[in-house]
């Protein structure tokens, strides 16, 4: 029997057949790109260009603000029109650089380059990854260089590549593994060198036989284990993947570092390869465009900052569309506005004719959300607490451990928007914490 994680999980219909065999095509850069400064987890980058500046493809336009941040580069060559506040697919507004494309496609100096990553020290690798503005491409957009620098007291023995792609509809990691297996495997070797990990594992769900074949071929004889895992959502979660591949459990509030693991998405490995071996920063990303309201489902390589509307138009949109999502149907966010740009952490665009949870009723206490939670959380209670405004309870309900995988909302027979409740609880709890801290400070005076 193939391995998987033990606790919770669901089996949504995988819907991948629409784009599984469609090769990744280039999406032509649009006339206007809008590149947000906050595409990653952490503090937004600081813009280093102003209106009227000429920029080249791959030129730095936003500088990382501290360690927990990431560089942002121009995805086209052209002229900066303006800087404006704009919403990102994550739902919040941030500074966005609007660039007019001159279609010359001129690269910035020294890009691309050819350098030998084997000759680079771990520190140089981390610097190259940070310079390239690489972030986690699985969805969370965690700055990749942070995950390549484990603290000294926590030695890493296993570097894991996440090729699970457990979200329904999405096939982009799958296509990437089929078409760029060699680059991804090199990316994994770079990662393993940076964190000094001895063991290298690739986890792929067994519903992707082609990807397994391609990765096995690319990894042959290199000390890399490519493992086929049983299909279960959310296996692509870091903690679930570690549990499935190594049997180690990451305790609540801890990181994969704490159990000697580091996990990167296959897309991130590919981006790391580009940044380290070719000096190419993360300025385009592969996307799956799918869903029943898309006429020509596709896998596309799209420049960062392209308006979502342009990409959808390229693939044809059915008029009966009800909802457009950034990311998969389980964890994705709805998109309200076609001018919202494609960002580094976006793994797909879905257009659907049906909205799953249109009405949300009261909890019927069936307990299914508790059964399926991969982290052993109690979503129904969290929702109840936020509804009643019982802020005291958030701490002991562990809202901050929730990764918002959406399994609970998926199974809820009452159609409750449980993830939204939890997200709201997190927001509220951090606000209360801050308030409490201020009051304590006031008391001491």
């Amino acid at each position, binding site marked *: 029997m193939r391995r998987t994680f033990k606790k919770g999980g669901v089996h949504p219909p995988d819907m991948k057949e629409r784009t599984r065999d469609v090769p990744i095509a280039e999406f032509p850069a649009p006339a206007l790109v809008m590149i947000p400064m906050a595409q990653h987890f952490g503090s937004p980058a600081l813009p280093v260009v102003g209106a009227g500046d000429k920029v080249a493809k791959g030129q730095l336009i936003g500088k990382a603000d501290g360690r927990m941040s990431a560089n942002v580069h121009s995805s086209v060559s052209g002229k900066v029109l303006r800087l404006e506040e704009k919403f990102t697919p994550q739902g919040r507004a941030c500074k966005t650089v609007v660039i007019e494309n001159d279609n010359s496609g001129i690269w910035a100096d020294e890009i691309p380059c050819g350098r030998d990553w084997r000759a680079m020290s771990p520190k140089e690798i981390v610097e190259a990854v940070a310079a390239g503005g690489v972030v986690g491409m699985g969805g969370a957009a965690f700055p990749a260089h942070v995950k390549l620098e484990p603290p000294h007291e926590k030695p890493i023995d296993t570097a894991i590549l996440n090729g699970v792609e457990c979200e329904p509809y999405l096939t982009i990691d799958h296509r990437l593994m089929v078409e760029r297996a060699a680059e991804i495997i090199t990316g994994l070797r770079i990662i393993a060198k940076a964190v000094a990990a001895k063991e290298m594992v690739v986890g792929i769900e067994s519903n992707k036989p082609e990807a397994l074949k391609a990765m096995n071929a690319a990894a042959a004889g290199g000390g890399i284990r490519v493992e086929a895992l049983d299909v279960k959502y959310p296996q692509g979660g870091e903690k679930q993947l570690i549990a499935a591949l190594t049997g180690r459990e990451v305790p609540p509030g801890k990181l994969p570092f704490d159990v000697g693991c580091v996990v990167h998405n296959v897309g991130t490995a590919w981006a790391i390869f580009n940044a380290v071996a070719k000096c190419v920063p993360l300025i385009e990303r592969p996307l799956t465009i799918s869903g029943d309201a898309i006429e020509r489902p596709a896998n596309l390589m799209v420049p960062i900052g392209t308006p979502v509307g342009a990409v959808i138009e390229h693939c044809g949109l059915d008029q009966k569309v009800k909802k457009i999502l950034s990311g998969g149907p389980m964890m994705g966010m709805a998109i309200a*506005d076609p001018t919202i740009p494609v960002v580094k952490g976006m793994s797909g665009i879905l257009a659907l004719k049906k909205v799953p949870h249109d009405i949300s009723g009261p909890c019927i206490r069936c307990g299914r959300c508790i059964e399926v939670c991969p982290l052993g959380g109690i979503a129904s209670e969290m929702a109840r607490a936020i509804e009643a405004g019982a802020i005291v309870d958030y701490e002991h309900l562990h809202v901050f451990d929730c990764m918002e995988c959406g399994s609970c909302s998926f199974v809820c027979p009452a159609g409750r928007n449980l993830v939204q409740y939890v997200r709201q609880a997190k*927001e509220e709890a951090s606000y209360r914490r801050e308030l409490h801290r201020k009051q304590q400070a006031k008391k001491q005076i």
Partner: protein
Amino acid sequence: MIEPLIILGSLGLLFGAGLYIASRVFHVSVDPRLERIESALPGANCGACGLAGCAGFARAIVHGSAEVVGCIPGGEAVSHLIADIMGVKAKEVDKQVAVLHCAGRDVADRFHYVGMKSCNAAALFQGGPKSCLYGCIRFGDCALACPFGAISMIDGFPVVDEGKCTACGKCVDACPKDLYDLRSLKKLVHVACRSRETGKATRSVCEVGCIACKKCETVCPFDAVHVSDNLAVIDYDKCTSCGKCVSECPTNTIRNFREERKAKGLWPVKVRHEKNV
């Protein structure tokens, strides 16, 4: 028949004497003012003073670490009571009320929002469903947060009952769009808009939004209104509530609260004279 009398009588005497002696032996001095202040406070435990409930506030006053006028819901009356108890002179208390800086009742939705009916939750998602990103989302988080029932949702839009409002500031905290301000009841003229969009953009989504035409700025004899960042903002230190800008405003964004407050008997504001203690 005499025995029960003896038993109960002697027990009563004995215990009474015992308690008397004990109360002397175990005497602990408690500041009597503490109890009096506590009974003078409203007892809502709303936390507007920034301390842990009314008891905490009373303790802080006796300690001297809080002002006698610190109780906002209690207002003038309570401040004077406390000042009497503490034997200090109360400063004049300026009664404040919450003012809503939005009048966009007819702003349409940008998209169909499904999910939690809460302004805060909706605002997290691309600024909420309303076309105006600065305006009221109309799910009523402020009305829920108000401990005094002073905010009610009338036709789905919040309305402040200034008679009930105690300026505790809960609505200011609750509103994700930061639409509430606490203002002196004496100030009658307010800008009912927070939109920083350009005039054209504001006009396209809202009939009564500030279009930054600067007419108010020109007409103000006291240099109290200024348009900055596409929004008229009143400097309340200079504003005399003369109402000139109100009649000049083409979109009816700047509003005069005089008539409304008069009707409720809140205007003119009664100023209580201080007594020397």
